[in-house]
Protein backbone atom coordinates (compact mmCIF):
# COMPACT_ATOMS: atom_id res chain seq x y z
CA UNK A 1 0.00 0.00 0.00
CA UNK A 2 1.19 3.51 -0.74
CA UNK A 3 1.91 5.56 2.33
CA UNK A 4 1.58 8.86 0.51
CA UNK A 5 -0.18 9.45 -2.79
CA UNK A 6 -0.43 12.94 -4.26
CA UNK A 7 -1.62 14.23 -7.60
CA UNK A 8 -1.31 17.82 -8.71
CA UNK A 9 -0.57 19.09 -5.23
CA UNK A 10 -0.64 22.86 -5.36
CA UNK A 11 -0.28 25.62 -2.82
CA UNK A 12 0.23 29.34 -3.22
CA UNK A 13 0.83 32.09 -0.69
CA UNK A 14 -0.45 35.16 -2.48
CA UNK A 15 1.66 35.43 -5.63
CA UNK A 16 4.29 33.01 -4.40
CA UNK A 17 3.74 29.47 -5.61
CA UNK A 18 5.08 27.09 -2.99
CA UNK A 19 3.90 23.84 -4.61
CA UNK A 20 3.36 23.78 -8.32
CA UNK A 21 1.48 20.62 -9.14
CA UNK A 22 3.49 17.96 -7.30
CA UNK A 23 2.86 14.27 -7.95
CA UNK A 24 4.16 12.09 -5.20
CA UNK A 25 4.12 8.38 -4.52
CA UNK A 26 5.81 7.00 -1.44
CA UNK A 27 5.57 3.30 -0.66
CA UNK A 28 5.45 2.00 2.88
CA UNK A 29 8.75 1.09 4.46
CA UNK A 30 10.85 3.68 2.66
CA UNK A 31 13.13 6.35 4.05
CA UNK A 32 12.74 9.30 1.72
CA UNK A 33 15.01 12.31 1.80
CA UNK A 34 13.61 15.51 0.34
CA UNK A 35 16.39 17.85 -0.68
CA UNK A 36 15.96 21.39 -1.91
CA UNK A 37 17.16 24.94 -1.46
CA UNK A 38 15.50 27.27 1.02
CA UNK A 39 12.04 28.25 -0.11
CA UNK A 40 11.83 25.33 -2.53
CA UNK A 41 8.56 24.12 -1.01
CA UNK A 42 9.89 21.29 1.18
CA UNK A 43 8.25 22.49 4.36
CA UNK A 44 5.02 23.35 2.56
CA UNK A 45 4.88 19.84 1.13
CA UNK A 46 5.47 18.33 4.55
CA UNK A 47 2.91 20.62 6.17
CA UNK A 48 0.36 19.55 3.58
CA UNK A 49 1.14 15.89 4.29
CA UNK A 50 0.75 16.54 8.03
CA UNK A 51 -2.55 18.38 7.59
CA UNK A 52 -1.07 21.59 8.95
CA UNK A 53 -1.97 23.62 5.91
CA UNK A 54 -4.79 23.48 3.35
CA UNK A 55 -3.85 22.72 -0.27
CA UNK A 56 -5.30 22.17 -3.71
CA UNK A 57 -5.08 18.88 -5.52
CA UNK A 58 -5.35 15.31 -4.39
CA UNK A 59 -3.49 14.00 -1.39
CA UNK A 60 -3.88 10.80 0.60
CA UNK A 61 -1.69 9.91 3.55
CA UNK A 62 -2.17 6.36 4.86
CA UNK A 63 -5.42 6.37 2.89
CA UNK A 64 -6.74 9.49 4.60
CA UNK A 65 -7.20 13.11 3.65
CA UNK A 66 -4.75 14.90 5.93
CA UNK A 67 -6.74 18.14 6.10
CA UNK A 68 -10.22 16.81 6.78
CA UNK A 69 -9.18 13.68 8.71
CA UNK A 70 -6.27 15.17 10.57
CA UNK A 71 -7.26 14.16 14.11
CA UNK A 72 -7.59 10.55 13.03
CA UNK A 73 -4.38 10.66 10.99
CA UNK A 74 -2.31 11.92 13.91
CA UNK A 75 -2.72 8.56 15.65
CA UNK A 76 -0.58 6.99 12.96
CA UNK A 77 1.71 9.85 12.08
CA UNK A 78 4.27 11.58 14.22
CA UNK A 79 6.52 14.42 13.30
CA UNK A 80 9.23 16.78 14.33
CA UNK A 81 8.32 19.80 12.24
CA UNK A 82 11.02 22.00 13.62
CA UNK A 83 13.65 21.89 16.28
CA UNK A 84 13.01 23.53 19.63
CA UNK A 85 9.23 23.42 19.63
CA UNK A 86 8.99 21.50 22.87
CA UNK A 87 6.97 23.56 25.37
CA UNK A 88 9.60 25.28 27.45
CA UNK A 89 7.72 25.48 30.72
CA UNK A 90 7.18 21.73 31.04
CA UNK A 91 9.31 19.29 32.95
CA UNK A 92 10.68 16.20 31.22
CA UNK A 93 8.57 13.95 33.44
CA UNK A 94 5.46 16.00 32.61
CA UNK A 95 6.12 15.77 28.89
CA UNK A 96 6.31 11.97 29.26
CA UNK A 97 3.11 11.88 31.28
CA UNK A 98 1.30 14.13 28.85
CA UNK A 99 2.19 12.17 25.73
CA UNK A 100 1.35 8.92 27.53
CA UNK A 101 -1.98 10.45 28.48
CA UNK A 102 -3.03 11.56 25.01
CA UNK A 103 -1.37 9.13 22.60
CA UNK A 104 -2.80 5.60 22.35
CA UNK A 105 0.36 4.24 20.74
CA UNK A 106 2.95 5.75 23.07
CA UNK A 107 5.23 3.25 24.80
CA UNK A 108 6.40 5.05 27.89
CA UNK A 109 8.90 2.37 28.87
CA UNK A 110 10.60 2.73 25.51
CA UNK A 111 10.81 6.51 25.88
CA UNK A 112 12.29 6.07 29.35
CA UNK A 113 14.93 3.65 28.08
CA UNK A 114 15.86 6.02 25.25
CA UNK A 115 16.13 8.89 27.73
CA UNK A 116 18.23 6.76 30.07
CA UNK A 117 20.94 6.78 27.41
CA UNK A 118 21.14 10.58 27.56
CA UNK A 119 22.06 13.00 30.33
CA UNK A 120 18.53 14.40 30.50
CA UNK A 121 17.08 14.49 34.00
CA UNK A 122 13.37 13.87 34.53
CA UNK A 123 13.09 16.83 36.85
CA UNK A 124 14.58 19.33 34.38
CA UNK A 125 12.42 21.85 32.66
CA UNK A 126 12.68 21.95 28.89
CA UNK A 127 14.01 25.52 29.03
CA UNK A 128 16.92 24.32 31.17
CA UNK A 129 18.07 21.78 28.58
CA UNK A 130 20.60 22.49 25.87
CA UNK A 131 19.44 22.56 22.27
CA UNK A 132 20.86 19.10 21.64
CA UNK A 133 19.11 17.72 24.70
CA UNK A 134 15.75 19.18 23.67
CA UNK A 135 16.13 17.42 20.33
CA UNK A 136 17.07 14.18 22.10
CA UNK A 137 14.01 14.49 24.30
CA UNK A 138 11.73 15.19 21.36
CA UNK A 139 13.21 12.29 19.44
CA UNK A 140 12.84 9.95 22.42
CA UNK A 141 9.14 10.86 22.62
CA UNK A 142 8.60 10.49 18.90
CA UNK A 143 10.48 7.19 18.60
CA UNK A 144 8.41 5.71 21.41
CA UNK A 145 5.28 6.31 19.36
CA UNK A 146 4.34 3.33 17.24
CA UNK A 147 3.59 5.42 14.16
CA UNK A 148 3.30 4.30 10.56
CA UNK A 149 4.77 7.51 9.21
CA UNK A 150 7.42 9.70 10.78
CA UNK A 151 8.13 13.11 9.26
CA UNK A 152 11.31 14.93 10.21
CA UNK A 153 11.72 18.49 8.95
CA UNK A 154 15.30 19.62 9.56
CA UNK A 155 15.54 17.51 12.71
CA UNK A 156 19.23 18.14 13.25
CA UNK A 157 19.40 21.86 12.52
CA UNK A 158 21.80 23.53 14.91
CA UNK A 159 23.13 20.30 16.37
CA UNK A 160 26.80 19.39 16.36
CA UNK A 161 28.11 16.48 14.35
CA UNK A 162 28.13 14.03 17.28
CA UNK A 163 24.45 14.59 17.99
CA UNK A 164 23.61 14.36 14.32
CA UNK A 165 25.43 11.04 13.98
CA UNK A 166 23.72 9.69 17.11
CA UNK A 167 20.38 10.90 15.85
CA UNK A 168 20.49 8.95 12.60
CA UNK A 169 22.08 5.86 14.20
CA UNK A 170 19.32 5.83 16.76
CA UNK A 171 16.69 6.33 14.07
CA UNK A 172 17.94 3.36 12.08
CA UNK A 173 18.72 0.99 14.94
CA UNK A 174 15.97 1.72 17.44
CA UNK A 175 13.13 2.81 15.26
CA UNK A 176 13.12 1.86 11.62
CA UNK A 177 11.70 -1.61 11.02
CA UNK A 178 10.86 -1.63 7.30
CA UNK A 179 7.12 -1.37 7.89
CA UNK A 180 7.40 2.25 8.89
CA UNK A 181 7.93 5.11 6.53
CA UNK A 182 10.21 8.03 7.29
CA UNK A 183 10.44 11.31 5.42
CA UNK A 184 13.31 13.60 6.25
CA UNK A 185 14.48 16.96 4.97
CA UNK A 186 17.88 18.34 5.80
CA UNK A 187 20.63 20.58 4.48
CA UNK A 188 23.29 18.18 5.71
CA UNK A 189 22.61 15.99 2.74
CA UNK A 190 25.67 13.77 2.65
CA UNK A 191 25.21 12.67 6.24
CA UNK A 192 22.00 10.88 5.38
CA UNK A 193 23.11 9.34 2.10
CA UNK A 194 23.56 5.91 3.71
CA UNK A 195 20.34 6.21 5.66
CA UNK A 196 17.97 6.86 2.77
CA UNK A 197 16.24 4.39 0.51
CA UNK A 198 14.94 7.13 -1.77
CA UNK A 199 15.90 10.67 -2.58
CA UNK A 200 13.95 13.52 -4.13
CA UNK A 201 15.08 16.96 -5.25
CA UNK A 202 12.57 19.74 -5.15
CA UNK A 203 12.98 23.25 -6.49
CA UNK A 204 10.54 26.10 -6.94
CA UNK A 205 7.61 23.96 -5.98
CA UNK A 206 8.39 21.14 -8.42
CA UNK A 207 10.04 17.78 -8.13
CA UNK A 208 13.13 17.97 -10.30
CA UNK A 209 14.54 14.52 -9.63
CA UNK A 210 13.51 11.42 -7.74
CA UNK A 211 15.00 7.97 -7.54
CA UNK A 212 15.72 5.08 -5.23
CA UNK A 213 19.19 4.89 -3.75
CA UNK A 214 19.94 1.63 -5.59
CA UNK A 215 19.05 3.29 -8.84
CA UNK A 216 21.01 6.33 -7.75
CA UNK A 217 24.14 4.23 -7.34
CA UNK A 218 23.78 2.43 -10.63
CA UNK A 219 22.71 5.44 -12.62
CA UNK A 220 25.02 8.24 -11.53
CA UNK A 221 28.75 8.01 -11.63
CA UNK A 222 31.49 10.50 -10.94
CA UNK A 223 34.73 10.42 -12.86
CA UNK A 224 37.88 12.02 -11.52
CA UNK A 225 39.42 12.37 -14.89
CA UNK A 226 43.15 12.36 -15.68
CA UNK A 227 44.06 15.69 -17.31
CA UNK A 228 45.11 14.13 -20.62
CA UNK A 229 41.73 12.41 -20.95
CA UNK A 230 39.59 15.47 -20.27
CA UNK A 231 38.51 16.08 -23.85
CA UNK A 232 37.69 12.39 -24.33
CA UNK A 233 35.64 12.34 -21.13
CA UNK A 234 33.73 15.45 -22.11
CA UNK A 235 32.64 13.69 -25.26
CA UNK A 236 30.47 11.43 -23.08
CA UNK A 237 28.35 14.50 -22.21
CA UNK A 238 28.71 14.88 -18.46
CA UNK A 239 25.78 16.57 -16.76
CA UNK A 240 28.14 18.57 -14.58
CA UNK A 241 31.77 19.42 -14.28
CA UNK A 242 33.72 20.78 -11.33
CA UNK A 243 37.32 21.23 -10.34
CA UNK A 244 38.95 20.06 -7.15
CA UNK A 245 42.68 20.59 -6.50
CA UNK A 246 43.30 21.19 -10.17
CA UNK A 247 41.59 18.00 -11.28
CA UNK A 248 38.30 17.87 -13.12
CA UNK A 249 35.46 15.83 -11.73
CA UNK A 250 32.75 14.94 -14.23
CA UNK A 251 29.33 13.70 -13.25
CA UNK A 252 27.52 11.36 -15.64
CA UNK A 253 23.96 10.16 -15.85
CA UNK A 254 23.57 6.63 -17.30
CA UNK A 255 27.08 6.53 -18.78
CA UNK A 256 28.95 3.45 -19.82
CA UNK A 257 31.21 2.71 -16.87
CA UNK A 258 33.37 0.24 -18.76
CA UNK A 259 34.48 2.94 -21.17
CA UNK A 260 34.80 5.69 -18.56
CA UNK A 261 36.99 3.67 -16.24
CA UNK A 262 39.85 3.97 -18.71
CA UNK A 263 39.80 7.75 -18.38
CA UNK A 264 40.21 8.09 -14.62
CA UNK A 265 38.82 7.01 -11.22
CA UNK A 266 35.12 6.20 -10.89
CA UNK A 267 33.01 6.57 -7.78
CA UNK A 268 29.42 7.07 -6.67
CA UNK A 269 28.71 10.79 -6.31
CA UNK A 270 27.49 12.34 -3.11
CA UNK A 271 23.86 13.46 -3.04
CA UNK A 272 25.07 17.00 -2.50
CA UNK A 273 27.19 16.93 -5.67
CA UNK A 274 24.33 15.55 -7.72
CA UNK A 275 22.07 18.15 -6.18
CA UNK A 276 24.39 20.94 -7.26
CA UNK A 277 24.57 19.43 -10.75
CA UNK A 278 20.82 19.04 -11.09
CA UNK A 279 20.09 22.48 -9.69
CA UNK A 280 22.72 24.05 -11.97
CA UNK A 281 21.16 22.41 -15.00
CA UNK A 282 17.72 23.30 -13.79
CA UNK A 283 18.73 26.92 -13.39
CA UNK A 284 20.29 26.98 -16.87
CA UNK A 285 17.02 25.79 -18.41
CA UNK A 286 15.22 28.91 -17.34
Amino acid at each position, binding site marked *: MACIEAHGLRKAFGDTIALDGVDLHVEEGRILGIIGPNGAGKSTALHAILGLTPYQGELKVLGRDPWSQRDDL*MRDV*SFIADVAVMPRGMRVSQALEYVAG*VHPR*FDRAKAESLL*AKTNIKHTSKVRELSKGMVTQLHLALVMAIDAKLLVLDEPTLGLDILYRKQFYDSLLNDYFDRSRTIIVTTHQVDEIQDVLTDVMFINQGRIVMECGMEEFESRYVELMVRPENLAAARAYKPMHERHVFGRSILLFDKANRDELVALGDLRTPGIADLFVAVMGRNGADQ
Partner: protein
Amino acid sequence: MTTEPPVDSPEVAPQISSPTRPMYWSIRRELWENRSIYAAPVVTACITLFGFLVSTITLPHRMRAAIAADPGKLHGVVEMPYDMTAGLILVTAFLVGVFYCLDTLYGERRDRSILFWKSLPVSDRTTVLAKAAIPLVVLPLFSYALILITQLIILIMNTIMLLGSPAHLAALYQNLKFFQLSVALLYAVIVIALWHAPVYCWLLLVSGWAKRATFLWAVMPFLAIGVFTKIALGSASFFTFLANRLGGWFNKAFLVHEKGTPHLERLASLTPGTFLSTPALWLGLIFAAICLAVTVRMRRYREPI
Protein backbone atom coordinates in the same frame (compact mmCIF):
# COMPACT_ATOMS: atom_id res chain seq x y z
CA MET B 1 21.11 8.43 34.59
CA THR B 2 23.60 6.61 32.45
CA THR B 3 24.02 3.74 34.89
CA GLU B 4 20.68 2.23 34.02
CA PRO B 5 20.90 -0.87 31.86
CA PRO B 6 20.14 -0.38 28.21
CA VAL B 7 16.72 -1.79 27.50
CA ASP B 8 16.56 -1.04 23.83
CA SER B 9 15.81 -3.71 21.32
CA PRO B 10 15.61 -3.43 17.58
CA GLU B 11 12.51 -5.60 17.37
CA VAL B 12 9.15 -4.07 16.79
CA ALA B 13 7.41 -3.01 19.94
CA PRO B 14 4.19 -4.95 20.48
CA GLN B 15 1.13 -3.16 19.21
CA ILE B 16 0.01 -1.08 22.12
CA SER B 17 -3.11 0.92 22.40
CA SER B 18 -3.52 2.45 25.81
CA PRO B 19 -6.66 4.37 26.77
CA THR B 20 -6.26 8.10 26.52
CA ARG B 21 -7.90 11.09 28.20
CA PRO B 22 -7.05 14.05 25.97
CA MET B 23 -9.29 16.56 27.77
CA TYR B 24 -7.98 15.68 31.22
CA TRP B 25 -4.34 15.85 30.16
CA SER B 26 -4.88 19.02 28.14
CA ILE B 27 -6.16 20.77 31.24
CA ARG B 28 -3.34 19.36 33.36
CA ARG B 29 -0.73 20.61 30.98
CA GLU B 30 -2.27 24.10 31.07
CA LEU B 31 -1.78 24.04 34.84
CA TRP B 32 1.82 22.86 34.44
CA GLU B 33 2.58 25.60 31.98
CA ASN B 34 0.70 28.40 33.76
CA ARG B 35 1.40 28.21 37.43
CA SER B 36 -0.09 31.66 37.96
CA ILE B 37 -3.52 30.00 37.65
CA TYR B 38 -3.20 28.73 41.17
CA ALA B 39 -0.24 30.71 42.49
CA ALA B 40 -1.79 34.18 42.15
CA PRO B 41 -5.04 33.39 44.05
CA VAL B 42 -2.99 31.66 46.76
CA VAL B 43 -0.79 34.75 47.14
CA THR B 44 -3.88 36.94 47.43
CA ALA B 45 -5.33 34.57 50.03
CA CYS B 46 -2.12 34.72 52.06
CA ILE B 47 -1.99 38.52 51.98
CA THR B 48 -5.66 38.73 52.98
CA LEU B 49 -5.12 36.24 55.78
CA PHE B 50 -2.19 38.19 57.12
CA GLY B 51 -4.20 41.43 57.04
CA PHE B 52 -7.10 39.92 58.93
CA LEU B 53 -4.73 38.23 61.34
CA VAL B 54 -3.65 41.71 62.36
CA SER B 55 -7.16 43.23 62.31
CA THR B 56 -8.73 40.42 64.31
CA ILE B 57 -6.97 41.92 67.34
CA THR B 58 -9.35 44.87 67.24
CA LEU B 59 -12.43 42.70 66.58
CA PRO B 60 -13.75 42.74 70.19
CA HIS B 61 -13.39 46.49 70.24
CA ARG B 62 -15.20 46.94 66.92
CA MET B 63 -17.99 44.58 67.99
CA ARG B 64 -18.46 46.50 71.18
CA ALA B 65 -18.67 49.78 69.27
CA ALA B 66 -21.22 48.33 66.84
CA ILE B 67 -23.40 46.94 69.62
CA ALA B 68 -23.32 50.29 71.36
CA ALA B 69 -24.22 52.28 68.24
CA ASP B 70 -26.65 50.04 66.35
CA PRO B 71 -26.92 46.29 67.03
CA GLY B 72 -28.37 45.86 63.55
CA LYS B 73 -24.98 46.69 62.07
CA LEU B 74 -23.19 43.95 63.97
CA HIS B 75 -23.54 41.42 61.17
CA GLY B 76 -21.79 43.91 58.87
CA VAL B 77 -18.79 44.09 61.17
CA VAL B 78 -18.72 40.33 61.58
CA GLU B 79 -19.21 39.38 57.95
CA MET B 80 -16.87 41.97 56.42
CA PRO B 81 -13.65 39.89 56.49
CA TYR B 82 -15.41 36.92 54.89
CA ASP B 83 -16.94 38.91 52.06
CA MET B 84 -13.75 40.84 51.49
CA THR B 85 -11.68 37.66 51.28
CA ALA B 86 -14.09 36.23 48.75
CA GLY B 87 -14.11 39.45 46.73
CA LEU B 88 -10.33 39.84 46.59
CA ILE B 89 -9.72 36.24 45.58
CA LEU B 90 -12.44 36.39 42.92
CA VAL B 91 -10.99 39.61 41.49
CA THR B 92 -7.55 37.97 41.37
CA ALA B 93 -9.01 34.93 39.65
CA PHE B 94 -10.68 37.21 37.11
CA LEU B 95 -7.41 38.99 36.32
CA VAL B 96 -5.54 35.67 36.07
CA GLY B 97 -8.23 34.34 33.74
CA VAL B 98 -8.10 37.44 31.54
CA PHE B 99 -4.34 37.36 31.10
CA TYR B 100 -4.28 33.59 30.70
CA CYS B 101 -6.87 33.76 27.89
CA LEU B 102 -5.08 36.61 26.15
CA ASP B 103 -1.78 34.78 26.12
CA THR B 104 -2.48 31.10 25.73
CA LEU B 105 -3.20 30.71 22.00
CA TYR B 106 -0.85 33.58 21.14
CA GLY B 107 1.96 32.14 23.24
CA GLU B 108 1.90 28.70 21.65
CA ARG B 109 2.38 30.30 18.24
CA ARG B 110 5.05 32.69 19.44
CA ASP B 111 7.20 29.97 21.04
CA ARG B 112 6.36 27.58 18.18
CA SER B 113 5.16 24.90 20.60
CA ILE B 114 1.93 24.76 18.57
CA LEU B 115 3.86 22.45 16.24
CA PHE B 116 4.49 20.07 19.13
CA TRP B 117 0.88 20.14 20.31
CA LYS B 118 -0.35 19.59 16.77
CA SER B 119 1.90 16.56 16.36
CA LEU B 120 -0.23 14.68 18.88
CA PRO B 121 -3.70 13.23 18.38
CA VAL B 122 -5.47 15.98 20.30
CA SER B 123 -8.06 17.83 18.25
CA ASP B 124 -8.24 21.61 18.02
CA ARG B 125 -11.65 21.40 19.68
CA THR B 126 -10.29 19.55 22.69
CA THR B 127 -7.38 21.98 22.96
CA VAL B 128 -9.54 25.11 22.79
CA LEU B 129 -12.20 23.71 25.12
CA ALA B 130 -9.52 22.72 27.62
CA LYS B 131 -8.18 26.26 27.49
CA ALA B 132 -11.69 27.70 27.91
CA ALA B 133 -12.24 25.38 30.87
CA ILE B 134 -9.43 27.09 32.78
CA PRO B 135 -11.28 30.39 33.41
CA LEU B 136 -14.78 28.88 33.23
CA VAL B 137 -14.38 25.77 35.41
CA VAL B 138 -10.93 25.34 36.95
CA LEU B 139 -10.40 28.87 38.26
CA PRO B 140 -13.93 29.20 39.74
CA LEU B 141 -13.76 25.84 41.52
CA PHE B 142 -10.24 26.45 42.72
CA SER B 143 -11.14 29.95 43.92
CA TYR B 144 -14.17 28.55 45.73
CA ALA B 145 -12.12 25.96 47.59
CA LEU B 146 -9.42 28.50 48.37
CA ILE B 147 -11.95 31.04 49.68
CA LEU B 148 -13.58 28.41 51.90
CA ILE B 149 -10.23 27.46 53.41
CA THR B 150 -9.23 31.08 53.92
CA GLN B 151 -12.57 31.92 55.51
CA LEU B 152 -12.32 28.92 57.82
CA ILE B 153 -8.90 30.07 58.99
CA ILE B 154 -10.27 33.58 59.61
CA LEU B 155 -13.16 32.04 61.52
CA ILE B 156 -10.72 30.11 63.69
CA MET B 157 -8.67 33.27 64.28
CA ASN B 158 -11.81 35.21 65.22
CA THR B 159 -12.98 32.45 67.54
CA ILE B 160 -9.65 32.27 69.34
CA MET B 161 -9.63 36.05 69.72
CA LEU B 162 -13.12 36.07 71.23
CA LEU B 163 -12.59 33.12 73.57
CA GLY B 164 -12.09 35.63 76.39
CA SER B 165 -15.57 37.11 76.04
CA PRO B 166 -18.32 34.50 75.63
CA ALA B 167 -20.94 37.18 74.87
CA HIS B 168 -19.03 38.38 71.83
CA LEU B 169 -18.32 34.84 70.73
CA ALA B 170 -22.03 34.06 70.86
CA ALA B 171 -22.76 37.25 68.91
CA LEU B 172 -20.19 36.22 66.30
CA TYR B 173 -21.85 32.86 65.64
CA GLN B 174 -25.30 34.41 65.81
CA ASN B 175 -24.49 36.92 63.08
CA LEU B 176 -22.20 34.80 60.95
CA LYS B 177 -24.08 32.11 59.06
CA PHE B 178 -21.05 30.31 57.69
CA PHE B 179 -23.01 27.63 55.88
CA GLN B 180 -25.23 30.21 54.21
CA LEU B 181 -22.17 32.22 53.21
CA SER B 182 -20.63 29.14 51.63
CA VAL B 183 -23.73 28.22 49.65
CA ALA B 184 -24.21 31.79 48.47
CA LEU B 185 -20.54 31.92 47.48
CA LEU B 186 -20.83 28.78 45.35
CA TYR B 187 -23.85 30.34 43.68
CA ALA B 188 -21.95 33.58 43.09
CA VAL B 189 -18.96 31.73 41.63
CA ILE B 190 -21.19 29.94 39.11
CA VAL B 191 -23.06 33.15 38.28
CA ILE B 192 -19.82 35.05 37.66
CA ALA B 193 -18.39 32.31 35.46
CA LEU B 194 -21.52 32.29 33.29
CA TRP B 195 -21.69 36.07 33.15
CA HIS B 196 -18.01 36.48 32.24
CA ALA B 197 -17.92 33.58 29.76
CA PRO B 198 -18.24 35.90 26.72
CA VAL B 199 -15.35 38.02 28.01
CA TYR B 200 -13.01 35.02 28.34
CA CYS B 201 -14.10 33.50 25.03
CA TRP B 202 -13.59 36.78 23.21
CA LEU B 203 -10.08 37.01 24.66
CA LEU B 204 -9.36 33.43 23.53
CA LEU B 205 -10.50 34.37 20.04
CA VAL B 206 -8.21 37.40 19.92
CA SER B 207 -5.36 35.33 21.36
CA GLY B 208 -5.75 32.79 18.58
CA TRP B 209 -6.03 35.42 15.88
CA ALA B 210 -3.71 38.37 16.63
CA LYS B 211 -0.12 38.27 15.45
CA ARG B 212 0.96 40.84 18.05
CA ALA B 213 -0.44 43.23 20.68
CA THR B 214 -3.23 40.90 21.83
CA PHE B 215 -4.33 43.23 24.61
CA LEU B 216 -4.82 46.16 22.23
CA TRP B 217 -6.76 44.04 19.74
CA ALA B 218 -8.95 42.76 22.54
CA VAL B 219 -9.75 46.13 24.05
CA MET B 220 -9.43 48.77 21.34
CA PRO B 221 -12.48 47.82 19.23
CA PHE B 222 -14.76 48.27 22.23
CA LEU B 223 -13.12 51.50 23.32
CA ALA B 224 -13.38 52.80 19.76
CA ILE B 225 -17.09 51.99 19.53
CA GLY B 226 -17.67 53.54 22.94
CA VAL B 227 -15.80 56.72 22.14
CA PHE B 228 -17.44 57.01 18.73
CA THR B 229 -20.98 56.62 20.05
CA LYS B 230 -20.22 59.05 22.84
CA ILE B 231 -18.89 61.72 20.46
CA ALA B 232 -21.19 61.17 17.50
CA LEU B 233 -24.43 60.34 19.29
CA GLY B 234 -23.74 61.79 22.70
CA SER B 235 -24.69 58.45 24.22
CA ALA B 236 -22.74 56.67 26.91
CA SER B 237 -24.88 53.57 26.57
CA PHE B 238 -22.07 51.51 25.08
CA PHE B 239 -19.87 52.18 28.10
CA THR B 240 -22.81 51.24 30.30
CA PHE B 241 -23.10 48.04 28.32
CA LEU B 242 -19.41 47.27 28.90
CA ALA B 243 -19.63 48.02 32.61
CA ASN B 244 -22.70 45.83 32.82
CA ARG B 245 -20.81 42.96 31.18
CA LEU B 246 -18.22 43.11 33.95
CA GLY B 247 -20.32 43.84 37.04
CA GLY B 248 -23.94 43.45 35.96
CA TRP B 249 -24.26 39.95 37.37
CA PHE B 250 -24.57 41.26 40.90
CA ASN B 251 -27.84 43.13 40.47
CA LYS B 252 -29.39 40.24 38.59
CA ALA B 253 -28.30 37.38 40.81
CA PHE B 254 -28.72 39.01 44.23
CA LEU B 255 -31.27 41.23 45.90
CA VAL B 256 -29.41 44.43 46.48
CA HIS B 257 -29.63 45.40 50.12
CA GLU B 258 -31.01 48.90 50.35
CA LYS B 259 -30.38 51.20 53.25
CA GLY B 260 -33.12 51.21 55.88
CA THR B 261 -34.61 47.85 54.94
CA PRO B 262 -34.24 45.00 57.40
CA HIS B 263 -31.23 42.74 57.00
CA LEU B 264 -31.86 39.68 54.88
CA GLU B 265 -30.57 36.22 55.49
CA ARG B 266 -27.86 35.53 52.91
CA LEU B 267 -29.72 32.70 51.21
CA ALA B 268 -32.88 34.80 50.99
CA SER B 269 -31.05 37.35 48.84
CA LEU B 270 -30.31 34.93 45.98
CA THR B 271 -32.42 35.51 42.88
CA PRO B 272 -31.52 32.75 40.45
CA GLY B 273 -34.84 33.18 38.67
CA THR B 274 -34.12 36.79 37.80
CA PHE B 275 -30.59 35.92 36.80
CA LEU B 276 -31.62 33.08 34.51
CA SER B 277 -34.31 35.18 32.86
CA THR B 278 -31.90 37.98 32.01
CA PRO B 279 -31.54 38.17 28.22
CA ALA B 280 -28.00 39.57 28.56
CA LEU B 281 -26.92 36.28 30.17
CA TRP B 282 -28.11 34.17 27.26
CA LEU B 283 -26.95 36.59 24.58
CA GLY B 284 -23.57 36.55 26.25
CA LEU B 285 -23.46 32.76 26.31
CA ILE B 286 -24.41 32.60 22.64
CA PHE B 287 -21.63 35.10 21.87
CA ALA B 288 -19.22 32.97 23.93
CA ALA B 289 -20.18 29.81 22.00
CA ILE B 290 -19.67 31.59 18.67
CA CYS B 291 -16.26 32.86 19.79
CA LEU B 292 -15.22 29.34 20.79
CA ALA B 293 -16.42 27.84 17.52
CA VAL B 294 -14.47 30.44 15.54
CA THR B 295 -11.40 29.90 17.71
CA VAL B 296 -11.48 26.14 17.15
CA ARG B 297 -11.85 26.59 13.41
CA MET B 298 -9.12 29.20 13.29
CA ARG B 299 -6.60 27.04 15.13
CA ARG B 300 -6.67 24.61 12.22
CA TYR B 301 -5.03 27.28 10.07
CA ARG B 302 -2.67 28.73 12.64
CA GLU B 303 1.07 28.51 12.25
CA PRO B 304 3.94 29.78 14.35
CA ILE B 305 4.52 33.53 14.16
